[in-house]
């Protein structure tokens, strides 16, 4: 059922893509947007026809692991935030630590150790060996 809902959202969005374009450079996106919208409709109709036997097919898996997903995304976010204000070391550590905590079998100690190891390795590889222009440690909160 969610499939259908999302297909509709899909179609609606593509209409937005198609119609708000300027004439010259917008030709290609408009044409593609219309085609995509039509295909989206076809899929939607197909999904509507076939709902009986696949009603429980949903967007969430049988056992959603919200914590895991949140930790993966949080890890990326942490990399951005700490990378901007603190440099490579805190960014790497927080990224690995937060994402590692997402697994059900993870322990605090294990995640900390892993984060420390990866941070050390990453700092050596990217800053020392590859000479990447990213500071290891800094303070620029802005």
């Amino acid at each position, binding site marked *: 059922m969610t499939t259908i809902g999302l297909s509709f959202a899909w179609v609606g969005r593509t209409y937005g893509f198609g119609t708000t374009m300027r004439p010259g450079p917008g030709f290609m996106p408009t044409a593609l947007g219309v085609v995509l919208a039509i295909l989206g409709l076809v899929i939607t109709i197909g999904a509507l026809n076939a709902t009986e036997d696949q009603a429980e097919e949903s967007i969430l898996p049988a056992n959603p692991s919200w914590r*895991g997903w949140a930790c993966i995304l949080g890890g990326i976010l942490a990399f951005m935030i700490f*990378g901007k204000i603190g440099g490579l070391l805190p960014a790497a550590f927080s990224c690995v630590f937060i994402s590692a905590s997402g*697994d059900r079998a993870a322990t605090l100690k294990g995640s900390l150790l892993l984060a420390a190891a990866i941070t050390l390795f990453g700092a050596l590889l990217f800053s020392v060996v590859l000479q990447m222009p990213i500071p290891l440690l800094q303070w620029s909160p802005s």
Partner: protein
Amino acid sequence: MIYTALSNLWFGFGVALEPQNLMWCFAGVLIGNLVGVLPGMGPLATISMMLPLTFAMKPVGAVLLLAGIMYGAQYGGAICSILLNLPCHPPHAITCLDGYPMTKQGRGGVALSLTVMASFIGASWGIVEMIFLSPVLVSLALDFGPTEICSLMLLGLLGGSTLAKGPAIKGVCMTIFGLLLGSIGVDVQTGIDRFTFGVSELYDGIELVALALGFFGVAEFMLNINSLDAKSRTYSNVGFRDMRPTRQDIRRSFFPMIRGTLTGSLCALIPGAGPTIASFVAYSVEKKVSKTPERFGTGMIEGVVGPETSTHSSVQGDFIPTMSLGIPGDAVMALLLGALMIQGIVPGPQLIGEHPDIFWGLVASFWLGNILLVVLNVPLIGIWVKLLTIPYRYLYPSALFFVCIGVYSAKNSFFPVGEVMVFGVLGYLLNRLGFHPAPILLGYVLGPRFEENFGRAMLISRGSFEIFITRPISAIFVVASILLVGSQIWMRRKRRPAATRDTPHPA
């Protein structure tokens, strides 16, 4: 013609044997083999992670490294699927059917060594094909104008999206979505920014690395986390000694290898029909030919060797349209083309003439790389098997860090890291809905060139679509595209009464 090909090949070996290039090639196959073995890590994610590192390298080294990762992963994936019944990469799904039963019978080592042999033979044939076929294609394609290129791309895009995994119509949707994503940023012809919503970071378009890592890195982690259960590893004690096949094994796998090579190379010639399809075709061929088809699935060596040979021969064959025409057959090829474009090299029929070192160096490195892989895989099998026991919970955080820093280093900016997050979530949702994101990458890479050539064709014809039909070569491509779509619809119609199930199947 043979003479020129051989002298070119000789030149290629000269390029590939330069110490630096040889090193990159070795690094590529080693990394490839490693990620191939590790469950839950794909060659696509790895190649896109390494992509930013190659910006600073010479183009030849970059291509050798990235290509090495790709075919190295094919070797590694076989280990994983035979010993653990875990098809890490789609082409190996079929290998599990007979490979794992062999492992249960204690003959996993034999299956592995014959697989390595089969892979080598398949790959060699694919390379030979590449040497002789690419120049022919190029000489044909050099006369192509924008019209022909445009309709050829149409065919390539349709092939790539309809023949890939999942329902064809969803594949086409994804391709178009990719084309739309490719149009974000400043328009090349008019200089007007599109879809940027005033965000200045988007003027250069979406970062290729961010797109690929979001869809194939982060989305994969989200699919796999807490769901990749530990398989029993009781049978995976394989040493060098277990790998010696008996004479009978070799005799039984000789013809499957040859048949696999043929099916693989044929599949490679059809745009979009990549290694996965090749392996399925090869398996069904073996089953048809065999005198005892009912015993397939219980550990028949033919069912392991045939598909593996065919996979490898088509992997190498896939490079033919990519390198000679600039039309990638699947997402990995699209990434490789993207890497070349970042290096400032325009893919297309002129590539071999203008950059012979890249093309012939690549061909020669295939052979070197495959030899290296045989050396790596046979005596060192024990090490790879040990690697299988690394739990996923140590793997994905480390990989995530590499994703982040890889994307950051592409532009030395944190904005693409945010893009990764968005594409990761989007990729996860699409996967759950049964849309496979691989065609997006195809569309994204080809999009700008498609638009450019389309614009030129329209200029030539003064805005009339007739030009695509009145030019003979272009007309052939258009007809082929229509046939492709038509056959897909026809096959769906035929299949429907038998099986109405068309459920989105998460990959």
